[in-house]
Structure formats: structure tokens, C-alpha cells
């Protein structure tokens, strides 16, 4: 680093921006499969949020505060998506058939919950894991 610049503004704002981006990514994740959104785009946005924090606070700081193993995250995502399909198998329907129902939840009111959401969660984890693995592999490569 040449003359480490004083990036105070950057550091302050990024905390806010990261919160907004992660919130929006969660919104996108939940609106998926009926409206634009879903696990893939939600996962990408979360990965972007984590990435910006990596840019600002440095690799080692974020590694301590977010100690995820992104490779494992990918394969947990894969397994989650695969096992969602098995639910419908056990229920006697073709693989990957989705089920949904409406539930009354406190605070949220009537909510549609689907098994596709679990599948989407798998996709979400996979995308976050994959995007972070790509980038961190390249970042750590220059040593």
C-alpha cells in the first residue's frame, strides 16, 4: 500500500450501505419464485455486500468477523437443494414438486410458505459460497 489514504468516509458509509444491501438481498430472496428475485440474485447481492466490506476493511479483519467456510457453504447449498426434491418424493409425487400453503405468522400476518423457498435457500448459499470462493481465491493468490 502506498501512503495508506484516510478512507474514513468510506468506512462509515460502507457500514450503512452493507446493511441496506443485505436487507435488500433478503427481500429479493423472499420475493423469489412468484415475483422477480430469488436465491440466485439474492445470493449475488449478499456476496456483493460482503465483498465491499472486504475491500474496505481488508481481508484479515473480515475473515475474523465473518468466519465462514465458503466451500462448505456451497456444498451445504447443493445438499439443501437436492434434499428439497426428496421431500416431494417421500410424499409420493415426482421429484422436485413444490408444495405451498398459507400460514398466519405473528408480525407478518398471512404468509405463503413454500418448499421452493428451501430450494431457493440452497441456491442462495451456493451462490454466496461460489462468488466468495472465486474472489477470495484470486485475492489470496498474489502472496
Amino acid at each position, binding site marked *: 500500500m502506498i501512503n495508506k489514504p484516510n478512507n474514513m468516509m468510506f468506512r462509515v458509509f460502507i457500514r450503512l450501505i452493507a446493511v441496506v444491501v443485505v436487507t435488500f438481498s433478503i427481500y429479493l430472496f423472499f420475493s423469489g419464485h412468484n415475483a422477480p428475485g430469488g436465491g440466485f440474485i439474492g445470493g449475488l447481492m449478499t456476496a456483493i455486500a460482503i465483498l465491499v466490506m472486504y475491500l474496505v476493511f481488508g481481508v484479515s479483519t473480515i475473515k475474523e468477523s465473518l468466519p465462514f467456510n465458503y*466451500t462448505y457453504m456451497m456444498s451445504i447449498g447443493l*445438499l439443501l437443494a437436492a434434499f428439497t426434491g426428496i421431500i416431494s418424493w417421500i410424499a409420493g409425487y*415426482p421429484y422436485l414438486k413444490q408444495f405451498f400453503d398459507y400460514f398466519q405468522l405473528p408480525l407478518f400476518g398471512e404468509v405463503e410458505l413454500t418448499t421452493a423457498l428451501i430450494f431457493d435457500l440452497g441456491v442462495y448459499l451456493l451462490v454466496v459460497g461460489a462468488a466468495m470462493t472465486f474472489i477470495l481465491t484470486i485475492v489470496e493468490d498474489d502472496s
Partner: protein
Amino acid sequence: MSNLIVLPILFPFIVGAVLVFFAKNSRAQRIISGIGSLILVGLSIYLAVVAYQQDTVILEAGDWSAPYGIILVLDNLAALMLLITSILAAACLFFAFGTISSKREKYYFYPFYFFLIVGVNGAFLTGDIFNLFVFFEVMLLSSYVLIVNGATKYQLRESFKYVILNVFGSALFIMAVAWIYSVTGTVNMAHLSERVAEINQPGIVTAIAVMFFIVFGAKGGLFPLYFWLPKSYYGPPAAIAALFGGLLTKVGIYAIIRMFTLIFHHEPSFTHKGLIVTVAGFTMFLGVLGAVSQYDFKRILSYHIISQVGYMVMGLGIFTPLAVAGAIYYIVHHMFVKTALFLLAGATEKVTGTTQIREMGGLIKSHPVLTWSFFIAAVSLAGIPPLSGFFSKFPIILSGFQEGQWVISAVALLVGLLTLFSMMKIFGYVFWGENKLTEKQSEVSVTKLLIPIAPLVAFSVILGFAAEPIFTYSLHIAEQILEPSNYVNAVLKE
């Protein structure tokens, strides 16, 4: 509807994902992947029986009915391919246990091995042309990882070409899918078959057919798009080269057979008897010439893949039940024998430390079992009766003469002779001749490596001696796929 037919895709997928957790523990990886591959063999035997009893089994994934959803279709051809795939995968995996370096193991060799099988099995099972593209991509992405795994300089250089060519091929593939969708308005294969039959395959559909042929030809190593194959199969370790050599090109050939029997079969005088037969002739002849000119064990074998692929598409091009049955039998024979030969090349390399056949010699004295296994596989490849190679070439060439395809049949005979020549060249240099091995080299034991190869060599012998029942089965498959209404009715339930 049967959920079982998703298992050849789902099971290796789960095994691959679980293996990621054990990436640093090679013992656990070996146990899980070994057991997984054996379960897969059992599963595919069961599915082959199911397919034989019920002809065509389908699964509408997610309960979306055809032609809107993605359909998995298990017919006899797909079941046969699944069966061979699982046997080859198990053999190469057990061979890899004894040869692969721990550095390669740690970099996700086993997970991607299983993801490759996911892609291959998916490509065999899917009944949707866009989904076929997706599974091709799954297969190719895993193959990129496996081909570069180990990261030697040679591998990095050659796999770069492999990646570029395949990415270009995939781009063409997706264009062809878009094109046929714009003409017919569907991507479901059965629906496509029906609609192309309704409009009686006009010129534009034939043009799309040629485009698909180019795409799958590039993946399958057909003339003139085979140049990437010998070099990229040379780099990776023997277990991977064997799996790729036995399996990956055959996925392209399977796709060609599927497309040109199910969908684009209305203009056989141009597509089959013109284009495919001509390409087959050039592929065969130039492939074998490449093999004759080489002096490297693995390169000779890689060039032979090209020439053998030519026979398979020749069988399709002649387009009679006998010829197509011959092509199917050829695929079975080739997958076993070619994989066995690659693995034997790997075992020889383990002894001598080189793949240059002129630097070897006299292995027959120190390693007789290795030598005679190679001899059986080699003469089988060349087509000497009573081994499987003879019974696979015979119906193809016979029906070539019956149909009056004199030139291609003569080329096929000549290529058989040259194959024999180049196999005997290997045998003469490597196994006969004066003993060039050092004391230490002649004591290297390859018994452990021969165990996974033995079933493959045995299959070649069995396929030859039990040619009648197996050929009857191939003929049954050929008759089934040459009558597309079987497939269409099963999927669209009319």
C-alpha cells in the same frame, strides 16, 4: 412415472457434495467415493432391467407435464449408456486410488469426478434439448477442473485450448437450441420429433440439424473438429484420461444418435447417408493415420478414439436397424476396451516412468499379466474374432455393403487393418523386444492396478463370446430408437 430414474443424477450429486466436506481427508474420500461408485453400478443394473421390462419410463420433474416441464426419459439406449458409464466410473475410480497423487486428491478430485458423472448421466436421461445443454455444461465444467487438476505446465496449456473450444461449442449449441425453438416453438425432444414430422423437415430444419451435428461432432471428436482431443487427453493422469477417452466423446455420439433418430430423420439421403457417412469416413481414416504416425502410448490411444468414433457414426449414417445396432454394440465395446487400454497405458507408465514406446521394451518377461491384458484389449480393438471388436465392426461393415456404401465400407476395412498395425506397434515396442527395464523397474508391482482393469478386459472377452444375446439386445434398442413413435408416445402420452 417413477422417481427412481432421477437417482442416476441425484445420487452422484449428493455424493459429490458430501465429498467436499472431506476434501482434506483422502482416506474418507476414498471410502465414500468407492462405496458410492459401487452403489451406482448396482442402481444402473436395476434401471437397465426396469427399462428392458417397461421399454420407456419417464419422470416429469416437479410434476410439470410434458411438453412444458423438463422430462427425464429412460429408454433402453439411455439405460445401457448409464450402465456402462457407472462401470467405467467405478473402474477408473479404483484405478485412481492407486495412481493419483495426494496433491491432486486434495484439490477436489473426487467431488468433481462425481459431478462429471452427474452431467453425463443427466445428458443420457434428459428428454429436453435445453436441459441437454445444461447437463453438457455440468459435464464440461467438471471436465475442465479434472483436466487441469494437478496444474502441470503441459496441462495448463492444453486445457486452455480444450476450454476455449468447448466454450465455443457450447455457444453454438445454445444458438442451435434457440434456432430450433424459433422454428418449432418447443424444446421438448418428443414434441420436437412430432412437430418436425408434421412440417416434414424443410430445408431450415435440416440446416439446424447440421448445426447440431457440428456441435456434437466437436464434443465427440469428429472430423474436422477433433484436433483438440489427442493433446488434451495426453496431459491428465491415466485414470482421468481413461474416463475421458471412454466416456466423454461418447456423450457427444449419444447425442448425435438421439437427435438423428428421434428428430432429424426425414432426410436420410442428405443428413445420414451424405453428411454423416462422409464425415465418418474422414474421421476414421485421419484418426488412424494419426495413430500410425505417433510413438507415444497415450497419444496413439487418443488418436484411436477418433478413428473409433468414426465407426459409430458410420453405423448411424448407414441407418438400417442392423447398422444402428452395430453402432450401439460398438459404443459398448469401445467404452470398455478404450478405457481398459488407457488404464493399461497408465499401469505401464507406472512401471517404466515414460509413455514413449521406443524407450520401453521387454515388459513381457517381468509383467506377463499386464502384457496379456494389453494383448487381449489391443486385438479386440483391432477387430480380431472372437473378441468384441469383431462383432461390432462386422454388422456395420456388412450393412455398409448391403446398402451399397462401397467406399465407406472399404475405408472401414482398411482402418481396421491400420488399427491392428498400430496396436501391434505398441505391443512390439513395449512388451516384446530386448529388455530395457532396470532392475528396479522390473520389480514394480502393478497387481493392484490390474484389479480394476481386469473386469473391463473380461467384458471385452464376454462381449465377444456372448455376442448373440448382447447383439440381440442392441438390435432391440436399435429397433426401438428407429421407431420414434415409441419415445414420443411415452412422453406425450397419446
